[in-house]
């Protein structure tokens, strides 16, 4: 009897063996190897020699590290505010049966279908100082002073890149909220109407609280996306001019694969991993918790 009870419980683990082995080889193994490398001076040619905490000491003195970290933080702040608010507003608007809602939903989601590299290239052309769509438009309407070197001015470049990220992210957040709105029982909304709420009160007191699990997921995903930002920077500026648009992932890539400082690059990725891990754990904890509720 006892055997028969245990057996079905073990079944999922049989299925998991295959993927787990692959996961160990391709994800967990390299992760620990990277941590090991971060304590070495490996240059890709010589055999790695352990150098203790030297990479980390150098990292914490490196101004480029702080520039990159600061840019990641800016990215994060922008990502958890603008796309979340914008996506929610779009979702609330398009969730009603207004004419053309499907068209707008599709249009706003469309950038998400493009790879980040393609987005970066398209926007590089739009930002082109002499012939780009943006500057040409400003010049056409006589606002010449607003025409900027979007990707060459160190004060603007980071915001110009983040704007592209937001442009792509809004549609994604919108879809997540739309899915959340579909899950809200209409009787709650009806009940609030019966109790005399106006639209604003319904949104504020009924819909938003019911959407809060979605909001947590959205915020955490946005944070993780902002930490792993790499593609746009790499395509649009490669971190330039002089590191002013550098983010941690791009900084790591240049140190490891351009400067051949594999050990130093590994230490950057360990820091990036620790930062991401905090938010990933929050996310997983939240997801598991909501799953249990059902």
């Amino acid at each position: 009897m006892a055997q028969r009870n245990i057996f079905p419980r073990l079944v999922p683990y049989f299925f998991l063996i295959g993927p787990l082995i692959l996961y160990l080889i391709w994800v967990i193994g390299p992760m620990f190897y990277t941590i090991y490398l971060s304590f070495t001076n490996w240059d890709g040619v010589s055999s790695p020699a352990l150098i203790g905490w030297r990479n980390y000491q150098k990292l914490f003195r490196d101004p480029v590290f702080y520039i990159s970290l600061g840019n990641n933080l800016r990215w994060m702040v922008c990502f958890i505010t603008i796309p979340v608010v914008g996506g929610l507003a779009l979702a609330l608007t398009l969730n009603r049966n207004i004419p053309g809602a499907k068209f707008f939903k599709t249009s706003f989601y469309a950038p998400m279908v493009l790879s980040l590299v393609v987005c970066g290239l398209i926007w590089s052309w739009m930002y082109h100082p002499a012939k780009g769509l943006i500057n040409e438009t400003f010049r056409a309407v006589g606002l010449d002073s607003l025409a900027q070197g979007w990707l060459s001015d160190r004060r603007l470049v980071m915001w110009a890149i983040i704007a592209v990220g937001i442009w792509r992210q809004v549609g994604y957040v919108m879809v997540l909220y739309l899915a959340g709105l579909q899950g809200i029982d209409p009787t709650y909304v009806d009940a609030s109407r019966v109790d005399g709420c106006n639209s604003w009160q319904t949104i504020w007191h009924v819909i938003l609280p019911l959407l809060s699990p979605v909001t947590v997921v959205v915020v955490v995903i946005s944070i993780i996306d902002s930490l792993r930002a790499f593609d746009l920077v790499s395509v649009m500026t490669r971190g330039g001019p002089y590191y002013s648009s550098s983010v941690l992932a791009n900084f790591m890539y240049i140190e490891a694969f351009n400067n051949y400082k594999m050990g130093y690059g590994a230490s950057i990725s360990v820091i990036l991993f620790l930062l991401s891990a905090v938010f990933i754990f929050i996310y997983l904890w939240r997801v598991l918790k909501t799953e249990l509720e059902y």
Partner: protein
Amino acid sequence: MKRYMFPLLAVVTVLTMVVACQPQTVTVPVEKRVEVPVQQTVEVERIVAKRVVIYNSYMSDPAPREADAALVRMFEEEHPDIDVIHSTIAHEDFKQAIRAYLTASTPPDVMTWFAGNRARFFIDKGLIMDISDVWEKEGWNESYPKGFRALSTVNDKQYFLPASWYWWAVYYRKDIFDQYGLKPPQTWDEFLQVCETLKKNGITPITIGTKYPWTAAGWFDYLNMRVNGPEFHINLMLGKERYDDPRVKRVFTDYWAPLIQKGYFLEDAAAYTWSEALQFMIEGKAAMYLMGDFLRDSYPDELEGNLDFFRFPIIDPKMPIGEEAPTDGFFIAANSQHPEEAKLFLAFLGSVKAQQYFADTLGRLPTNMGVDTSKFTPMQKKGLELIQGADYVSQFYDRDTTPEMAEKGMAGFMEFWDNPDKIDDILARLEAARQEIFAGQ
């Protein structure tokens, strides 16, 4: 029964997976073990008839790739008993993969690479084979110019075969110069005069795209060589001179900064790649471009009649003249498994026949002095004269110094471009970087 169906199915699935996996994981080595003798027996048969040399090349652009393959065919025709296993790897990928190739127990035998410091790094680590005997046997010590021989030599031994090179110069639009009655400047004052005239007439004097900042490094190389001489420049590249030396600062404050502050360079240069910046010259909005000869590959053929180049203007006439002439070539991996064949192949690549073919099909300049230059285009001849008139030939900033120093240095140049006043700060930081980077070498 139904209750048992699912677990049963699961067990069966897992078992099939295990069974399916096991033979694979177990037999992979077995299969290899079977395969290797098979290959070896083939090779044993071949040793009588056919020998092998493995050649990895980064000539991945269409035209060089074709010429490269043609060279391999020519060699195989000359040596019917040798088989060249030829792989072409994308240029950027090759730069990262070479470290794995060189440290492998069975590396490719012959590889393409950059002459100078980039090769020196591997030579010092003992990863590149001494080929002094090939130099001696092929008479290259006589048929190659001294500069190229020096470029291949470490401690009196030759390790490298320089095979082709191109020159750097200031390219300019002849028609624009004619329109404003300008002549190619030879001195710094004349150069500033040309810039001023162009600027006054609404033409951007100098175009440049610094999205990838190596283009700015070209300006640093030339200004430093013209102001402080090539010897000082190369010592700086090797980490033997200080970045906060007042001589270095002079390059920035006295020569580079005025060009930036007077607006002689293209506006928003940091937004463009080098080829995007070339558009302004093609459209006639900019007049000059300090660039390598590969600029002509991207220049429309029908407009090339308007294109010419001049030597970077002389600043201090007392200084020897240094020119940039990045050189590509070949080497043999130190633990090559087929050293005899590799040396034969290398000897062919450095021969007059191979170099002549390469020069004629690609328009690159050959290193072997035996190559017949009578059929060269006027541009090629002029480039050849430009470099032959130089006292010293440098490779380029990111080839002459270490990759990390180059990365930091070029970022410093870009920061200076934005804030010429912060030069003291920037040079102090570069000096700190230099001390750290060259400390271990």
